[in-house]
């Protein structure tokens, strides 16, 4: 197993290296000069040239790329051109905010999605099955922008149940230690604040969970349907076991592998794809951080931001692959 993990980690190097190269080239191919954007509309030509030299933008691309890689090896993610702060220092609070939201969303998606899929398969062609699958179809096709605003309007403005934007009650702000507010409030024993923080997670969490929830539900259903036709399920039932036990113990265990793959992929997508949700709900996450960096042509932030997200994405996939082996010991890694 360790051997396998080591091999996978080694494989990551060319993958991430290739990615840095692609991102590096693409962002330089789009028009728009960072020096100009930083200096604003009134900037003189001389000033722009001077800043380009200072930022190293006048160097040929391969020198810039090489310098960037050397920096990465030293653990230096570069310095934001806009805020003049090291990206490595700046990025964590954004990343933490997104991880918290994505984690919350994936939990909702998995719990509801997997169970809806199981029940749909269990009672195939029942009204529940049809309803769940229609909802799943709506789920994947619903624009997050619209869904987010509707949620805010119904649960925030009309019912006044939940806060519509942000991560915390700003009149009683969380004292940030790790930037993960759930963790922070628990460490500090502020359970009243933990409640508020969780409440702030609900609406953006649901908006972000909708698409993965629908995908997971459909995947679970089809995977379960296949397994439930298998002989051992019939045998188990013939032995007089309760249907619930057959479904949740015997069938699910065998049906879960493809579902895990989907969950892993979706978790990764959540990290990168949270931009719309973060915009609508004023969530200070990594999606918006990178998005704003793109508008300002803040090359180091774009490069390193995407690199960090990609790294987490591949790590999640590695984790999912390892999980296969734990769930199904027939899968061997060598």
């Amino acid at each position, binding site marked *: 197993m360790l051997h396998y993990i080591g091999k996978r980690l080694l494989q990551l190097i060319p993958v991430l290296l290739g990615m840095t190269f692609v991102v590096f080239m693409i962002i330089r191919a789009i028009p728009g000069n960072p020096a100009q954007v930083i200096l604003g509309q009134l900037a003189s030509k001389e000033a722009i040239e001077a800043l380009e030299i200072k930022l190293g933008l006048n160097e040929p691309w391969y020198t810039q790329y090489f310098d960037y890689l050397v920096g990465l090896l030293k653990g230096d993610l570069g310095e934001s051109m806009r805020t003049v702060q090291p990206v490595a220092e700046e990025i964590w609070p954004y990343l933490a905010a997104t991880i918290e939201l994505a984690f919350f969303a994936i939990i909702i998606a998995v719990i509801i999605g997997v169970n809806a899929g199981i029940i749909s398969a269990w009672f195939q062609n029942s009204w529940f099955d049809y309803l769940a699958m229609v909802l799943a179809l709506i789920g994947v096709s619903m624009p997050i922008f619209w869904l987010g605003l509707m949620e805010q309007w119904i649960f925030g403005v009309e019912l006044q149940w939940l806060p519509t934007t942000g991560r915390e009650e700003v009149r009683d702000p969380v004292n940030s230690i790790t930037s993960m507010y759930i963790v922070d409030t628990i460490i500090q024993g502020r359970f009243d604040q933990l409640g508020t923080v*969780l409440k702030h997670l609900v609406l953006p969490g649901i908006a972000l969970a909708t698409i993965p929830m629908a995908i997971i539900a459909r995947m679970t259903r089809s995977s379960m349907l296949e397994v439930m036709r298998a002989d051992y399920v019939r045998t188990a039932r013939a032995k007089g076991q309760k249907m619930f036990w057959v479904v949740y113990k015997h069938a699910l265990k065998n049906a879960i592998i493809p579902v895990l793959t989907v969950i892993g992929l979706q978790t990764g997508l959540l990290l990168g794809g949270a931009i719309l949700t973060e915009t609508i709900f*004023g969530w200070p996450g990594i999606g918006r951080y990178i998005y704003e960096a793109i508008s300002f042509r803040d090359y180091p932030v774009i490069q390193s931001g995407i690199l960090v997200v990609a790294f987490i994405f591949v790590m999640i996939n590695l984790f999912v692959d390892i999980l296969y082996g734990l769930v199904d010991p027939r899968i061997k890694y060598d």
Partner: protein
Amino acid sequence: MGKSKIWSFLLLMFVALTVVLAACSSDDSSDGDTEKDNDKGTTDTAEEKVLIFGRGGDSVSLDPAAVTDGESFKVTQNVLETLLNFGEQDTTINEGLATKWEPSEDGLTYTFTLREGVKFHDGTDFNAEAVVKNFERWAGGSEDLFPYYGSMFGGYDGDEGHVIESVTAEGDYTVIFKLTRAQAPFLKNIAMSPFAIASPTAFEAAGDKFGDSPVGTGPFKFVEWKRNDSITIEKNAEYWNSEEPKLDKVVFRSIPDNSARLNSLLNGEIDLADGVNPSDGSTVESEAALQLFERPSMNVGYLGLTSTRPPFDNQKVRQAVNYAIDKQAIVDAFFEGRAEVAKNPMPSSISGYNDDIPGYEYDPEKAKQLLAEAGFADGFEMELWAMPVPRPYMPDGTKVAEAIQKNLADVGITANIVSYEWATYLEKAKNGEADAFLLGWTGDNGDADNFIYVLLDEDNIGSNNYSYYSNPETHKILIEAQTEVDEEKRNELYKQAQEIIFEDAPWVPLAHSTPLLAGDAEIINFKPHPTGSDRLNKVDFK
């Protein structure tokens, strides 16, 4: 681990998560009442008056001299103070940290008398020496460190165009500015947010980190900055004006989406919302718990016609386009009528505005006639660039472009709408790649120079003169106006310039909008400032 153990572990996790989720949903109902109390900014006024200000974006840095974006100034305006202040809702010059200011007759020397007994938030004394140190810091910098300093005062130490020759302290409370040449908008420049006086002790110690925790003399002290989320400032109990500020705390929250921000306001999570869509104006007016604020206009939205690209190198074609577009209809439809139809490149609130200019009325027949005279009786095909982002002077670039497209089609011009991502759009327009493009400008200091010279002088081609308009006559007038100290003569010069520009028609000026804000009905004394940076020292809850 055996497989059954793993399985029971997963099951346990599932149960645990369900419990957690159940706990937070029960939380929702039991905490409902306390939440309501928190929601109302006004119920806790007895203890602490907190104003939550929702806006579209985060600040870049809180060192006002280092930035050019309005979101940064919104905060720094309340933490640091300038020597002179603009009027409550206009750009007249009023006292600030300086109580008196006297220009010499030739306009080359200005003597400022400073307010006594003022302290910076870190305890440093505010005095003439502090002012000198601030100006030395900026003048010794460069465009990427202190961009506004260079553009407003003609450069930095050693530069040929640098206007400020010296800043010296005479005693503790007198500062003398010597200029190399007269600069008409000098006092207005001094009043701009970027030239707020910071504590020398603080910026010397913090270096380039000063923008993370600014120290000034303002009514509010900086407390905390959660990037992309919120910035908190609190009452400065030692503020020199003991009557102010009225609020204990102000929190600036970034909520990028306009509709989401309004939802937050309706839900009571914020007390004041910037950037209300014109189309939401009536919603706000119909809510008893809310009030609508109009920010006096200091902007212009226009359709630029790149005058170096055929057929827009032909004056008649440009005039024809001006006649072809129904500006009033555009203002009614997309600004919800909350804008003034433009006829000059600057709004009427700015001194030097030429109201005698008739403007081009909507007259498609006249447009066709002019096109025929110019040799385009059958019209022509062109690209019409639509802004991809909403701005106060242009709430919806695409829709305005569509309306213009229809107007142009009526006179035989085929306009194809194109759009690019914002930075690309500006870059390409700046390179003169557009035939016609929608754009706008919000003034910095309320001076005519900041509109006409910046946007339409040949010196600014390749910078803000996106339409590549140049006319030696206007150039001469605008340069003359920059050093003319006599206000009346100066206004006369700008009026002349507007006449020439009207004839040359490098733009179709469209509108001067009044940006909207919405707030809790309990808010009093909030006066939105045309520059976009509001001083909140008088703001209070009923």
